[in-house]
């Protein structure tokens, strides 16, 4: 399985660390809404198909990524930085040329 890091380009999955389900929404730390906390900790969509995930390119640029991975085929249909875009982060232009 290859994940195309927006900074580093296509890399083997061994360079990445799975950081969990990307659909979760963390309640306010001060919240005492137990149902919201329960949902955050336990409830998962578990889809057979496209799934929003958080991965870190831990063996590369170390950036956190939003990845859409198909749980049936492992096809990666989208990869983006979790935190904003960096002006210097566009793929190096030389690589886009044949």
């Amino acid at each position, binding site marked *: 399985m290859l994940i195309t890091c927006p*900074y*580093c*380009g296509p890399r083997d999955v*061994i360079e990445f660390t799975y950081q969990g389900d990307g659909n979760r929404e963390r309640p306010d730390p001060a919240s005492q809404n137990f149902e919201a906390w329960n949902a955050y900790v336990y409830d998962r969509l578990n889809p057979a198909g496209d799934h929003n995930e958080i991965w870190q390119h831990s*063996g*590369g640029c170390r950036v956190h990524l939003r990845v859409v991975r198909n749980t049936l085929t492992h096809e990666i249909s989208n990869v983006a930085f979790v935190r904003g875009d960096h*002006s210097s982060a566009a793929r190096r*232009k030389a*690589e886009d040329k044949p």
Partner: protein
Amino acid sequence: MAERQSPLEPEFHVGSHGNFEHGVEILLTETRPGSIVQLAAWPGEEKTLMAAIRAVTGLALPDGAGGGSSDGVKSVFGFAPGKFTVTDEAEGLASAFAKVVAPAMGTVTDLSHGRTAIRIAGPKAEWVLSKFFAIDFALPAFPVGAGRSTTHHDVFAQIQRTGTDQFDIYVFRSFARSFWKALCHASEEVGYEVQ
């Protein structure tokens, strides 16, 4: 100034090794830069930091991911968004950057004693490195000056191409001897010389 010890010392054997009867196709050296510095820009400060790098080193960074350059004495390359590795044969680079990189611009981390720089050169350099790292070493995909962050068996490595047939690899000092031994083993089949 105290003399710096090399972590490769017990396994650093100058001379030709391996299958070199038909010629040496790999040169291995330790470049021992006096300064290895890591710079990181806060979001939005990337261009300002790149200008500071130019002011201190005289090296212009090309735009884009992994871009870099080297003049043979000083080198710089991007290894992550807004983050750069800068090296110099001379000591004192970290203090030079500390003067120009304001706290609002980014951070300066002195890694001079934390990394070991190994140079692999020769017509089989791409071949040997391809046995270690799952990245494309072909010149069009990895141009001269450019840098890459990758991993060999969980040993993090930063690689800069400093020539058509030459790469500088920065590894953790504590892993450097083991990495060096592996590099020597991988070079045996093509014949290598340690200088």
